[in-house]
């Protein structure tokens, strides 16, 4: 089963880079720059894991996370928080509902390993 990963990041180039990295690792990668649409996209495409950037304009990463985790359909989908502000993650309890986190800049292979771990490969 090819696992489906959704990348949520307002930076197109970053989304593109992650897409290439993960596709090379054998994943099916979707991208969604708009946080409001994430929930629908996850449901529609039966996403196996979400990589979520926190610093986004419009709807914040935190709210997207909350949406995902409060919806019974999507709450079991593992979420990896990807952000430059790793300290924020540490101190804000709201983020503890995410399954994993990683700081930007990251090592490409580390990202791959972590995603593999999350989707249970």
């Amino acid at each position, binding site marked *: 089963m090819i696992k489906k990963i959704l990348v949520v990041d307002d930076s197109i*180039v970053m989304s593109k880079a992650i897409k*290439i*990295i993960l596709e090379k690792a054998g994943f099916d990668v979707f991208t969604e720059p708009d946080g409001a649409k994430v929930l629908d996209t996850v449901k529609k495409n039966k996403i196996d894991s979400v990589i979520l950037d926190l610093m986004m304009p419009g709807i914040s990463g935190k709210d997207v996370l909350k949406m995902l985790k409060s919806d019974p359909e999507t709450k079991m989908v593992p979420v990896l928080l990807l952000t*430059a502000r790793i*300290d924020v993650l540490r101190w804000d309890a709201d983020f503890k509902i995410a399954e994993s986190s990683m700081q*930007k800049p990251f090592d*490409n292979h580390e990202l791959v390993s972590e995603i593999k771990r999350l989707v249970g490969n």
Partner: protein
Amino acid sequence: MITLILLGTTLFLIVSLALILNLIMNKGLDEVEYQREMVTLERVPRAIDARLEILNHIAIDWGNWDDTYNFIKNPSPDYVKSNLNAESFAQLKVNILIIADLNGSMVYKSHYYNGVLSNNTPELEEYFSEGINYFHATGYFTDRGIILLPKYPLLVVSRPVLRSDGVGPNDGHIIFGRYLDLEETSYISDFVGYPVEIMRYDVVVPDDFNEAKLFFSNNNSLLVKNINETTSFGYVLIMDGYNQPALIVKVIIDRTAHKQGRIIQRYLWASVIISCLVMMIIMRTLLSLTLLRKIKKIYTTIEYVRAKDDLSKRIDVKSKCEIGLLANNLNAMITSLESSRAKLVQESEEIAKANAELKKIDVMKDDFISNVSHELRSPLATIKAYTQMMDNGDLGKINKYQKEGVGIILSSSNQLQNLISELLDISRLESSNARFQFSRQKLRPIIDEVIFEFRPGLRKVKGRVVNQVSKYCSLDIDRDRVKQVFRNLMDNAIKYMSKRPLLITISSRKAADGNCEILFSDNGVGIKPENMVFLFSKFYQVNQGLNKAAESGVGLGLSIVKEILKAHGAEITAESDYGKGTTFRIVFPPARPELVND
């Protein structure tokens, strides 16, 4: 208190004055009294003299008389019968009559007493055994005086017997004697003015008379003794006709003057006391009205100002005297206190405002750094992601030259990443905006984790780490931050290793005062003595490391270590042997340090 002193002093003065006056007055009165008593006592001999004078007149009467004159020549019973009967004696109040001729033999003698006239005069014989001559033989007897007869003392007068015209020569002598009996005594008392007691010198006398005798033996003749407040006894020595002590006359003097003096004294003291009381009352009132009231106003106002901390109050005392000046000065002082307090309040308000401003700036700075680091990291992440992909061949095959170049880009990107992290870190740590999560945990496994992270790096340099930290060493620490500390120390050790294979030893020791000591030793190149002082300074780097690690930092590693440990209440020091190695010593406190920010 003031009142007490003033009143006490004045009282003392007045009383002293009164006492002195009293003393002077007493002395004066005593002096006067003594003089008067002496005067009185001097009346005693004069009194006796007066009585003798009366007798003398009788003697003259009878002495200057032809009948008597002729009687001596021719003693006839007629003279006796007509003149010398009991009635005459009674009338004359004469007790003894002797008529003697010139030879001294008694022509006539008789003794009258208690209505009994007798010629038989055994006392007289006894006394006058040597005859009348006895009187004159000594040539010493005055014509008047006292003779001590057995029954009574005798007032005696002797006159020559002359013719009626008073012409001599005398025929003989006529001697009249009168007993100094109670009647005479009362006449003497009247003359002296006070009751007298007459005591013969030749008998056993009461004690007080003996005392007087003693006194008189020293050639004195007058003695006064103050017996009590009302009476004095005066003693007068009366000599007899032969100038021998005959009588002691005791005069009972009423001390009227003295008593009067005492009464005056009492009035004096009474008036002193009354005037003292009055004066005290007046003074107290005056003081209270002028001084004390004002002083009270001053200290009650000051008390109020102090207690209520109300600097707007002033002392309400207006006076031209020193109290007024004091009040004015105190008021001025309160005014200046008020204004300096107002100034202080204003200044502290300004400081508080400045403080708030600074805090705002601090937060702004923190936000700024946070934002900046994010802004820097995001594009850096993109650079790294693509560079790694390129390096990996994910974007197409690259030749070895390209791979080399990409490697360099990657290494620089990593450097940049470290720099951004460290800058953010040290900025947070220094501004005390860094937050810590303390919990008690064992140190040994934390160090093991860090060692594990460094395994690939250590393998590359053939280095080894020995973890000898006691498994019982348990501390209140922020796990992630302490890991960072050891990471940085490890980084340094690797960066500055020598030619020989790197050996790092980490051990622990419990100090006597409960502190936990961690020792981090390496066998690297060590630190030169002149560089030691800069060891923990920011941006300080010694470019001596033989192993120039690709990801060398900017010299913030040890400063970060120091700041993190400071937040733990711990201290780090270093000892180094240049060429041999370095030992870092960290001393953790036993108790939980104050949380920096939570």
